[in-house]
């Protein structure tokens, strides 16, 4: 039976992430929505992408949705599984075009925090996971896309701990710190898609999702968002065909794209 319900916010997000992926590229993905987006891209506009994972799996033959980034679906029938050092080494050596990761906080220069909330390292309000591969991918990948919920707490002017350097203090400071790659090129949230103004490297509104206004986006942000010249375009929304593919072929169990039931 066909499910004709309108796309929910997670499905829309998965589609927007997938739209960042170009065909014939190598894509480094974490679990969750980025992985859904990768598979959706492969089933729609980018059939020839290769997916790479931090636990070492790469180019798996698609199975179901993995429960963990080390789970069998990330290395299912893979021709090779890399050791972790070599997997990140491929990023440094220019074999990864785009990477997708989440964050607990992201600031106006795209610096990421997954370490702690609070200003005392020894007595944090909350201690979070630490870097994992977040720093490695943000440091090394040619293009980084950050995905997460937008609130003033999660989008502060300065992150509580710089786990991963985005554009550091803006301008040329990322390069001066010695880092390769373009750093974050986009931030995707429930409000819109953001990029970074080329000179200052400050976060800028690129598109807003239907129903969102600049005021709402600004209210969800702890710093002043830059605005593009002229009218702000709307984020393109998925067609019903794409939603159908998402529901029937990509995540039929709704593991990552169904909203939690109350």
């Amino acid at each position: 039976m066909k499910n004709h319900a309108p796309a929910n916010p997670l499905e829309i997000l998965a589609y927007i992430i997938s739209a960042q992926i170009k065909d014939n590229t190598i894509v480094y993905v974490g679990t969750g929505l980025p992985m859904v987006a990768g598979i959706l891209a492969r089933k729609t506009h980018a059939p020839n992408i290769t997916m790479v994972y931090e636990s070492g799996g790469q180019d798996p033959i698609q199975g179901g949705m993995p429960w963990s980034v080390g789970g069998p679906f990330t290395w299912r029938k893979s021709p090779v599984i890399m050791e972790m050092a070599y997997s990140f080494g491929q990023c440094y050596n220019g074999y990864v075009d785009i990477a997708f990761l989440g964050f607990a906080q992201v600031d106006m220069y795209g610096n990421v925090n997954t370490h702690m909330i609070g200003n005392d390292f020894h007595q944090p309000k909350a201690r979070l996971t630490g870097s994992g591969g977040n720093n490695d991918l943000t440091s090394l990948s040619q293009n980084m896309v950050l995905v997460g919920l937008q609130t003033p707490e999660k989008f502060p002017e300065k992150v509580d701990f710089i786990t991963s350097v985005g554009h550091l203090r803006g301008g040329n400071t990322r390069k001066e710190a010695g880092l390769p790659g373009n750093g974050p090129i986009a931030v995707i949230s429930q409000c819109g898609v953001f990029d970074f103004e080329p000179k200052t490297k400050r976060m800028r509104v690129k598109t807003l999702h239907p129903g969102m206004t600049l005021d709402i986006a600004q209210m969800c942000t702890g710093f002043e968002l830059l605005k593009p010249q002229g009218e702000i375009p709307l984020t393109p929304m998925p067609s019903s065909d794409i939603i159908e593919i998402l529901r029937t072929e990509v995540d039929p169990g709704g593991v990552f794209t169904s909203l939690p039931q109350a």
Partner: protein
Amino acid sequence: MGVFDYSREALDNLKIDDPGILDRLVDFEHARAVHLKKDRSKRDKRISLKEAVAEFVQDGDVVLDTGFGYVRTCIQSHFEIMRQGKKDLQMIGAPNTNQSYMIVTGSVRYSHNSYTGAEMRGTDRNYTRQLKTGKVRILSEWSHGGIAQGLKAAQLGSPGVLSKQMLGSDIVKYNPYLKVIHNPLKKEPDPSLFIPALYPDVTFIHVQAADKFGNAYIYGPTVNDLAGAAASRKVIITAEEIVPEMDIRLNKKGSIIPFFYADAVVELPYGALPGSMPGYYYWPRQWWEKLMRFSAINEENIGTFLDEWVFGTKDQIEFLEKLGGAKWMIEARRQTKAAEGDNEDIDFSYQEYTVNNDPGIFY
């Protein structure tokens, strides 16, 4: 005074006034001396897990967490370390998810932290609490790739590597081992991060198959274990199955840890529980959800949980019985085979653990 010139800023930020505690992890001369003294003979090294932990884990050792968080990770060996009341260990790993519950009983006292958590199961509130009450001290912060490179440097036989990871981040300010230097071959300044070779004291590695001498075969992601085995002073191989040496020589091409690294071999079927084991069993996913969403939230819950699952079981066989016994084994094998091969007809859905839905059997 020690021989290492640690980053002053990081020592201050981490409030480390006894930097000698950092030495063992990077003491190449000592690790080499230990390796040189190892008995090279190709002998039957099989002992029990209890004997291996008693003999090879000393209080205060630097322990490497292996596998990938809860994939082919030596979790039953961690549990035995806790049962034997080993104290004040330093834990390193990428990830080092499993240090969290080991802090509760004092087995782990120090952390070389890269990632403590269980992905989408939520933030580990136990770790936050242990940190605030001072039951664990962070000795260094790392990215996964940084630890991977440090272990790989040891395997390469190098004092360290120059890395482009972690530059400019606060991780460098909270890691006494890291130094920003410039690539000496470049005319222009080129900041690069020196990561020293890392030498853990003791490493348990759970593998699919090993012979009695310690040649150990890994199927699925090896993650950092080939490097960790080469670096570590003491290596204990635990294996789902013990196989003849000829089976390794003829059939197990691929990822092999050579026998002369191994100090002991333990036949330990289901030794990765409650993690998954490629080729053998899928996760008891609800176990992790219960740990993260219920047991980790306060001191009483985590105590009860550990009493039940760690101290209330004497070995992995009793642990397996508690998970669901034969019924669990059959389903877990079916799921992992399907996930690795052809899953078209297998349903991976399950009911997530919630406080109101404690299933009693843990798929």
